């Protein structure tokens, strides 16, 4: 009889996550059902006041704006990322093209925000350029919703390009030729044959851009103005300035709920799909990626495989 060391190995991490991840979330849930304390903090006792405060028209406006900005940025990202993923996958020099996408992606987040401020600012590169051409003087490009969406698109584009590349790369291109042979036009073959086969990659890219954008904090704070405040900024203000912790908690719950729905839809989809655990793993590790084998719906992007696997394990 071999001893079961499983709990011994997994215990420390489970304990760590229980204390520093699960417990803080439980506190947030609890705080969202309490009343605001007299001097910040919370007063004990059950209350739905923090949730009623969510109906405040100003807050609702911010919520809808957050939804709109996230949806717009995600849509723009997808439209740009699809051809990019395709181009990298079809290229003879994939490592170089991936390198070109990953260098900006691995450059520090704050450095990239700073770079956009030095381009769009009143004394920035763009205004300097326009001034040199005599086309205007000190145009305000920063501190509005357009700037926020632009920088969000810039920041999260690689998160969509990489999974799309990875699923298009696994797509069997002889299927396109077959479709063309059967009389489909070029666009038809892409739309009817390729798109359904890379749906996994598309779903991954949407999730990987929508979730972080929906909880965005730094970008609207630094390049946005009054018309571009998002829910993340409201949460931060409630915690650090107004010190209304129950409201911060109830807004956090709302943000978690909305991104959680996205994540659950995704998990449900990956569990429903016919792909086996082994298949997800193969997709994730890049081995047995089945070139030349007609893929089942869902040539997967990597994390999708991993998360799907975790979902199956948890089931």
């Amino acid at each position, binding site marked *: 009889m071999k001893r079961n060391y499983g709990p011994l190995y*997994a215990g420390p*991490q489970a304990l760590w996550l229980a204390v520093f991840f699960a417990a803080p979330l439980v506190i947030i849930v609890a705080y969202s059902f309490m009343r605001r304390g007299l001097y910040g903090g919370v007063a004990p006792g059950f209350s739905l006041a923090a949730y009623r405060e969510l109906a405040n028209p100003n807050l609702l406006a911010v919520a809808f704006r957050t939804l709109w900005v996230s949806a717009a940025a995600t849509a723009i990202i997808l439209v740009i990322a699809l051809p990019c993923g395709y181009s990298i996958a079809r290229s003879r020099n994939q*490592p170089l093209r991936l390198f070109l996408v990953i*260098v900006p992606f691995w450059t520090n987040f704050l450095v990239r925000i700073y770079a956009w401020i030095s381009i769009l600012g009143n004394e920035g590169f763009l205004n300097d350029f326009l001034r040199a051409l005599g086309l205007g003087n000190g145009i305000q490009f920063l501190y509005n919703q357009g700037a926020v969406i632009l920088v969000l698109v810039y920041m999260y584009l690689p*998160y969509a390009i990489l999974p799309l590349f990875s699923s298009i790369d696994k797509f069997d291109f002889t299927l396109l030729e077959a479709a063309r*042979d059967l009389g489909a036009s070029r666009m038809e073959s892409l739309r009817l044959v390729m798109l359904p086969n890379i749906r996994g990659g598309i779903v991954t890219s949407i999730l990987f851009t929508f979730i972080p954008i929906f909880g965005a904090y730094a970008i609207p704070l630094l390049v946005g103005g009054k018309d571009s405040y998002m829910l993340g900024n409201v949460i931060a203000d409630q915690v650090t300035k107004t010190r209304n912790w129950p409201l911060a908690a109830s807004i956090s719950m709302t943000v978690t709920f909305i991104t959680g729905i996205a994540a659950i839809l995704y998990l449900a989809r990956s569990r429903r799909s016919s792909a086996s655990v082994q298949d997800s793993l193969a997709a994730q590790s890049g081995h047995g990626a089945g070139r030349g084998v007609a893929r089942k719906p869902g040539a997967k992007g990597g994390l999708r495989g991993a998360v799907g696997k975790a979902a199956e394990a948890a089931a």
Partner: protein
Amino acid sequence: MKAQADTLAVRPAGAQAGSRKKRTGASDWVFAATVLFLFLPLFVLFFYSFNSSKGGTWTGFSTVWYEKLLFASPALWKAVANSLVIALGSASAATVLGGLAAVGTSRYRFRLRGVVKGLSFMPMLFPEIVVGVSLLVFFAGVGLKLGMLSIFIAHTTFNLPFVYLLVDARLEEFDSSVIEAARDLGADEFQTLVRVILPMAMPGIASGFLTAVTLSLEDFVITFFVSGPGSTTLPLYIYSAIRFGVSPVINALSAVMVALTIALVYPLRNFLKAFAARA
């Protein structure tokens, strides 16, 4: 069916199907434009880091900002040191905890295994702002003073899922009969772990560790909530510099960081495909 396919195949439209081969197509132009878009801000940073004056107008070449960066920015270098300490510390902790957990869940079946696995990737699915705020509230509740320790705890927490998933994927790949063989030949659990499992899992452990270091150096939002006086990390330093207005020292620093990124990524370019599949 086959006959029908054959008749369709001789149609002129079908005859062009093979002509798609490796021409520069519309998607390549979109890709080229996207790369320009991605690199434009980096070029602008680099360009202005050599500007002799502070404003956006070019007034001549100068390395004055690099000199300032190197010799007159003690607070900045303190932030770099803090960032490195936290990145290496939290990546090490996450690698040990996450790596061991991956060994446990991939080799053994036990009660709550599903819960452990589920919990292992959850932090990845929560918006950063929610993780940051919940940790802040938690630290306030237990009375831990915000500083290097609270940042270390926060970073270890968000790094764990990445290490766990990368090591787990690696462990699932290899042939478990080797482990059985080690046991049959008389190795105890510890020997099997150190001499068989760890060496075989090393690529997963290494990529987990590096991913964790990168994520830690990069993080702004969560750190923002759990940092205290004296524990400014590099992203927090840059943030406060931005709030005070554009400073070319940050340009010089950014140019150095971009150069370091390129120096780090270029030798790895042949592994980037595996990275993209995991991204």
